[in-house]
């Protein structure tokens, strides 16, 4: 995987919207002064609170929205001017929107998209088979899209966006509303796609699991501005984002305040359930669990990930 070619390059990119506020109109800056360079083969998580400007940025990268300021190059092309050429090199999944033909069987959406992208017969067959196999679509290929479950539809959406083997794949909230198993399958697929084809990934998400398992670089935006560009570990370290181990104990236990490298967050049910925060850089869930097990029998456990909102809140708080 080479990272010397820039797939995405923005310079002082900005976009304003005019919004109506009662009778007055005011200008809302959705994205401001965004300068970012993403190389070929990178996997980048683009995170931030709702309204931080993530979707607006994505739409400018694809040539859907015209920037108010600054410049943007995607796959070496000018997104607005070269929209149609760019569309052949980029695949986008908007978690909230469908690009499938609602009334027709899933299979038909793929043949239509293959025609739209001008795939030859051989390429179409090979790629469709690959996606059907890896995303496990075979069982519902003949089902009309409107009858699919959300998990099935999202897998079909991803296949539709990737059918033309784009160099850059952009996923806007790809796992929103999916159950644990569906999320897991989708993430595994994306990891494999990247390994096999060297695809560049850019994804926005509120799911820390997505970021941890898929991304090696984080871009964090706050009110339209880039406030972090680096690894997730680095970000978590900076803001002290912690994981939380929740343990259900066999007997009422005094608060576990002295487990090494943890912080006791609270107890319920007279000490039957306790919450311990720990920093994944200094210890592991297994070590914490072992330390707790030495004192009292553990019946059940859960590890809570810091969600993106939490990380974001900490970054935002630190900036103010």
């Amino acid at each position, binding site marked *: 995987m080479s990272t010397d070619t820039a797939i995405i390059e923005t310079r002082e990119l900005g976009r304003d919207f005019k919004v109506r506020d009662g009778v007055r109109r005011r200008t809302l800056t959705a994205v401001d002064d965004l300068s970012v360079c993403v190389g070929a083969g990178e996997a980048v998580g683009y995170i931030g609170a709702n309204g931080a400007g993530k979707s607006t940025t994505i739409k400018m990268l694809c040539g859907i929205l015209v920037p108010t300021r600054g410049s943007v190059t995607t796959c070496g092309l000018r997104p607005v001017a070269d929209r*149609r050429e760019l569309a052949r090199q980029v695949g986008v999944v908007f978690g909230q929107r469908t690009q499938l033909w609602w009334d027709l069987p899933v299979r038909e959406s793929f043949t239509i998209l293959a*025609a739209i992208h*001008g795939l030859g017969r051989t390429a179409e067959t090979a790629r469709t088979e690959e996606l059907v196999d890896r995303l496990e679509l075979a069982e519902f290929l003949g089902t009309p899209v409107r009858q699919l479950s959300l998990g099935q539809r999202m897998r079909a959406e991803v296949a539709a966006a990737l059918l033309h083997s784009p160099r850059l794949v952009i996923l806007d909230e790809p796992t929103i509303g999916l159950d644990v198993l569906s999320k897991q399958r989708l993430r595994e697929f994306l990891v494999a796609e990247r390994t096999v084809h060297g695809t560049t990934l850019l994804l926005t998400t509120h799911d820390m699991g997505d970021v941890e398992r898929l991304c090696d670089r984080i871009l964090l935006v706050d009110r339209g501005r880039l406030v972090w560009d680096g690894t997730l570990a680095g970000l978590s370290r900076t803001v002290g984002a912690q994981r939380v181990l929740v343990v259900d104990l066999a007997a009422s236990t005094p608060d576990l305040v002295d487990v090494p490298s943890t912080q006791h967050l609270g107890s319920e049910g007279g000490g039957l359930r306790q919450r311990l925060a720990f920093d994944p850089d200094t210890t592991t869930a297994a070590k914490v669990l072992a330390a707790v097990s030495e004192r009292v029998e553990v019946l059940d456990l859960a590890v809570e990930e810091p969600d993106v909102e939490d990380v974001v809140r900490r970054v935002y708080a630190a900036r103010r």
Partner: protein
Amino acid sequence: MPTSIQTTGRTSWRPYWRILVAGFRRQSTYRLAALGGLIANTTFGLLKVAILFATVRAAGGDLNGYDIGTISAYIWISQGLLGSVNLNGRSDIATRIKDGGIVVDFLRPLSVQAASVATEVGQSIFALIPRGLPTVSIGVLVVGMNVPSAASGYLLGALSLLLGIVVSATTVYLVAAAGFWLVETRGLQILYMVVSGFFAGLFVPIDLFPNALRIVAECTPFPSMLMYPVDVLSGRVVGMDALGLVGLQVLWLVLTALAGHLMTRAGRRKLEVQGG
């Protein structure tokens, strides 16, 4: 270098043809709706028979060139085309511009306008099967009507019919594209619905309009959608005159397509994708 799949020719009709077929297939999944449309078309056809036959008879069997045979053809062909020619102003793309679904259209290596028109045309062509043909058959078999006497009449009629469908799609696209500026185009769509049926000659043939009103109608694309195809298909207008009507349809197709192209180009800059 990432693996990339070799693509065939860049400017090609194949994607648009495939999208047209998808529109056709999509419409074919709404069978009950088609049956409902057919019943409505036939009912109103019989009403129009009662009113317009009486009018022709009251005029002594000849009403501005219409006799019972030609007025019957007018009624049944226009009723049959109602499922295919868009006189209500609604389109999927107008909804997508309003709710932000339009992003998907812009993510494809296609002309957004041409893809939308192709979809609409595909749906319209399908509607000829469950709605157009049965309605006209009822006219021919049950009531009786004039039909072209020569094969060339049918050929030109089919072309005129297709042009009517396409002109209605390119014109309705203009209503939708106004949404780049207005976002909510329902008012415009209702205006279109009120005006289009009247000027397209749905209620009364435009040759029966007062002269000034007929001229106004002819300055709009609406007669190209319904009146001209009906005139050519029924054999009421033949020869060079029929070719003239088809020429007018082509003119309106070019004008509305060009306007839609310019509106899309300008509108893109105004686009503020709604939601998410």
